[in-house]
């Protein structure tokens, strides 16, 4: 705790200049957290939250032993956490590794992990970590600064192409790492960055003694593939691999060399085994959890509650509703003015509507969000108007402009923008019928319902909406290219609770700036203003100043409605009631992020 304070005080002393490099740096950052802003197909990612005081039972009553079984929707792609990109692989390999710092998923703040303390230089560019003494890898070898230096050499190696490399790559310049002594490492960032320490929650520290030969031979990716012998996969996490039955089950066993101890001095983790079973079908996962074959289900859909509630009443499971998650359902219009293959990406007639602020505001006012919350999420969601959900406790701005459900206001806005009515049909100023296609990912029952509601709502203000469902991967690639759709319904998921993690979506040159991605120059004055504010908040080392800047960003987005937010579902997770020390949170992994402390009664 003290250490964290120290770090933060130092942080606030930093300068807050703004520079172009900084911007690029941030853009890089974003890529790291970019998985951050991903589409949500089936997997609801999530974020921070409060536990039900469950945590406090720690220590005395905790008992070592037992196993925890969780189901995952897909088999792991690799055993190397560094190369994990998808959610199942990430969550299955995360218990195998350690990080320099760990973001406490409940407080959303970084805490010491393998580094027992850190210092940030006054200019915000140099971070010095003091490593924990006596830490050993799961094969008994000691952990030193050399492992950290090795890890970052790997990350900085373009031939490795680690998914997290982008964040540490600024303008072709890598972050610099330097071994000060056996237990001290210093990093130099090219630009000051207030939330810089958070980045070190990402990369897993790799064992140099195991992986260096493979890396030198250019075989790092293959080294810990799915065929690797379990004892070769060595890490600093609470668990290590015990066995893997391809496509069926991954069994992790206790790492006896894990460094962490409980408050009463017991060696962690408590659990002997952590078992992941692969169940592709969501209904199977639900039924297995209901029957007690698995111990956790995360997340739980609101619809599942009807099935789970009787089991909860019997006392066999507990359900935690953590309130609005960071998964925000969003609907937006394609505002890309460009051409592809000589043809405009968006029909110019429609593009003119989509770029009209009042048109977007009208659409926003025409949507009955309460119905979405009730019908789609069984009431377990919050109506969403701004960019951040209330789950983002530190940064959420509750005072953004709200275009609440009001069809009359919607009509008024449309008429002000030059649209008119012919009977019930809306026509634009040139007398053309207002009609467009709403695209969403196929096979998602929640979105199918939402689009049918939106279709009916917009019909009430005279717009004809045709629905289209596209396979998720195909849709994602369309978005990345910024084209071939008119309006889209998806979700934005935050991977971290820090404004900089949203850069990719908010900067006009970001690839996640979906309504008009990868712009050379900001297309509108308000987008330029957002770019500017985002750069300034990145350089500001003072939280209050950053919050002021980011509040303005949220207000602009609320006013302009490039993203029309609909709802933020509650994050609901379920766990067997004999599990202790559960601290479910809104940041992933919602339930197992502190798996070293979880025990069985």
């Amino acid at each position: 705790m003290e250490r964290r304070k120290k770090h933060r005080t130092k942080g606030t002393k930093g300068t807050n200049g703004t520079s172009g490099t900084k911007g690029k740096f941030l853009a890089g950052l974003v890529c790291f957290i970019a998985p951050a802003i991903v589409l949500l197909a089936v997997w609801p990612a999530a974020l921070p939250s409060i536990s039900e005081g469950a945590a406090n039972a720690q220590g005395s009553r905790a008992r070592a032993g037992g196993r925890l079984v969780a189901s995952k929707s897909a088999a792991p792609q690799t055993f190397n956490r560094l190369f994990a990109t998808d959610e199942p692989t990430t969550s299955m390999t995360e218990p195998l590794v350690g990080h320099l710092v760990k973001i406490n998923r409940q407080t959303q703040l970084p805490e010491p992990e393998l580094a027992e303390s850190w210092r940030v230089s006054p200019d915000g560019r140099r971070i010095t970590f003091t490593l924990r003494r006596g830490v050993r890898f799961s094969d008994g070898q000691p952990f030193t600064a050399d492992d950290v230096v090795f890890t970052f050499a790997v990350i900085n190696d373009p031939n490795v192409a680690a998914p997290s490399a982008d964040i540490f790559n600024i303008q072709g310049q890598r972050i610099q790492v330097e071994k000060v002594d056996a237990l001290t490492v210093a990093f130099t960032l090219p630009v000051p960055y207030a939330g810089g320490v958070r980045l070190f929650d990402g990369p897993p520290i790799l064992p140099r003694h195991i992986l260096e030969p493979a890396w030198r031979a250019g075989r790092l990716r293959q080294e810990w593939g799915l065929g690797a012998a379990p004892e070769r996969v060595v890490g600093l996490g609470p668990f290590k691999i015990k066995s893997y039955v391809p496509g069926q089950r991954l069994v992790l066993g206790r790492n006896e060399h894990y460094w962490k101890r409980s408050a009463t001095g017991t060696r962690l983790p408590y659990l002997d085994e952590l078992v992941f079973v692969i169940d592709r079908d969501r209904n199977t996962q639900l039924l297995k959890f209901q029957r007690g074959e698995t111990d956790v289900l995360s997340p739980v859909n609101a619809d599942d509650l009807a099935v789970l509630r009787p089991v909860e009443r019997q006392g066999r499971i507990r359900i935690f509703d953590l309130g609005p998650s960071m998964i925000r359902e969003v609907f937006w219009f394609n505002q890309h003015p460009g051409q592809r293959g000589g043809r405009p990406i968006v029909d110019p007639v429609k593009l003119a509507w989509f770029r009209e602020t009042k048109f977007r505001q009208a659409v926003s006012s025409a949507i009955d969000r309460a119905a979405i919350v009730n019908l789609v999420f069984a009431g377990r969601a919050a109506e969403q108007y701004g960019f951040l959900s209330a789950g983002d406790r530190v940064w959420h701005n509750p005072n953004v402009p709200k275009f609440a459900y009001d069809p009359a206001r919607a009509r008024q806005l449309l008429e002000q923008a030059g649209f008119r009515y012919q009977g019930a049909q809306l026509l634009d100023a040139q007398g053309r019928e207002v009609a467009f296609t709403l695209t969403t990912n196929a096979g998602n029952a929640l979105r199918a319902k939402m689009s049918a509601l939106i279709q009916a709502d917009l019909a009430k203000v005279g717009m004809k909406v045709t629905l289209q469902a596209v396979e998720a991967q195909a849709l994602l690639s369309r978005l990345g290219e910024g084209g071939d759709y008119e309006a889209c319904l998806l979700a934005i998921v935050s991977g971290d609770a820090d404004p900089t993690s949203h850069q990719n979506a908010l900067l006009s040159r970001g690839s996640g700036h979906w309504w008009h991605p990868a712009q050379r120059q900001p297309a509108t004055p308000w987008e330029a203003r957002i770019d500017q504010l985002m750069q300034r908040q990145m350089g500001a080392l003072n939280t209050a100043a950053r919050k002021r800047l980011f509040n303005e960003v949220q207000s602009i987005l609320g006013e302009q409605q490039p993203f029309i937010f609909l709802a933020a579902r509650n994050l609901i997770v379920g766990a067997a009631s004999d599990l202790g020390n559960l601290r479910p949170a809104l940041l992933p992994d919602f339930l197992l992020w502190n798996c070293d402390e979880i025990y069985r009664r």
Partner: protein
Amino acid sequence: MGRAVRDTHWLKGLRRAWRASPRRLRFGVFVLGAFALAALAADFLAPYDPAMQDREHFHAPPATLYWMDQKGEWSWRPYIYRSRLEDRIEMIYREDRTQAFSLKFFVAREEYRLLGVLPCRVKLFGVDAPARIFLFGSDGLGRDVLSRLLYGARVSLSIAAAALLISFPLAIGIGSLAGYYGGAVDFVCMRAVELFLALPAFYLIIALSSALPRDVAPEARAASIMAMIALFGWASLARIVRGMVLGLRERDFVASARAAGCTDWRILRRHVWPQIAGLMLVQAALAAPGFMLAEVTLSYLGLGVQEPLPSWGGMLATGQNVLALTGFWWTLAPGAAILFVCFGFHMLADGLREALDPRAASLDWGD
């Protein structure tokens, strides 16, 4: 009378068959007829617009009709109570017993055109506002399942019917050409048939339907799906036709017709096709459920008919979770409808086969 005598023998056979009528055949005709009529008269039979959303009453269970009033006396017309959502998690609706709404027949509603022509304002039944009657319950968006079932029947049945109307003439034409002329014509036609049989039809249809341009209206989309289903439905039938024609070609009556100078067209029309008509009918009745199920499957996968146009497959797609089976079983109503229609078609086919079986002594095949 003269015309009746001139009438082709197969029609006569059919008529006799109907009189001798295997019960199965009559049953099939009855079931399918009922569904077809219901689909045609959906505007009149369905109490609500299929797209109407009652957002206060989603996943409402089928309405309970009361015949006794609260004093236990017989009520001359059934009535219902309004219900209110009490528990959003377990979706429990409680009836408000303070006010009863009786079920009324031939109620006046907004004007519509019955069968697309007759202006009409009357619906078969309804209740007074503010109550709504969901005889088969409502779906997750508060839409009346019965109304959607009826309108959905239009889509699902007409896709099957239209696919039949396209693929059968195609099959008969190509099969006859191949069988009648033989040689190179036969070779080309049969290779084409084999090509179509070898293609994994369903996956191709899925691929084609996802390649449809995004802004087609739901109706146009339904039509193109129908065309795709038909496109892949003719091949196996064409092969059967070809085999039969090949056999008939050598028969004496065909030879004598040819000797008498009949044109090929006349021979096919007057001597060959009547011989295969019975079997074709049986085949059509057997193929129809397949066509219908193709549409259902596509829509179930979200690639078929799109909202707000209701179709049986689309309605079933919302039932893809455990809860639909345990909690909202009424949303599976289209499943029952599909079952009945398929059963009807199979009864029909079976009955036809029995009635037209050349080995059945009671039938006169006229040659």
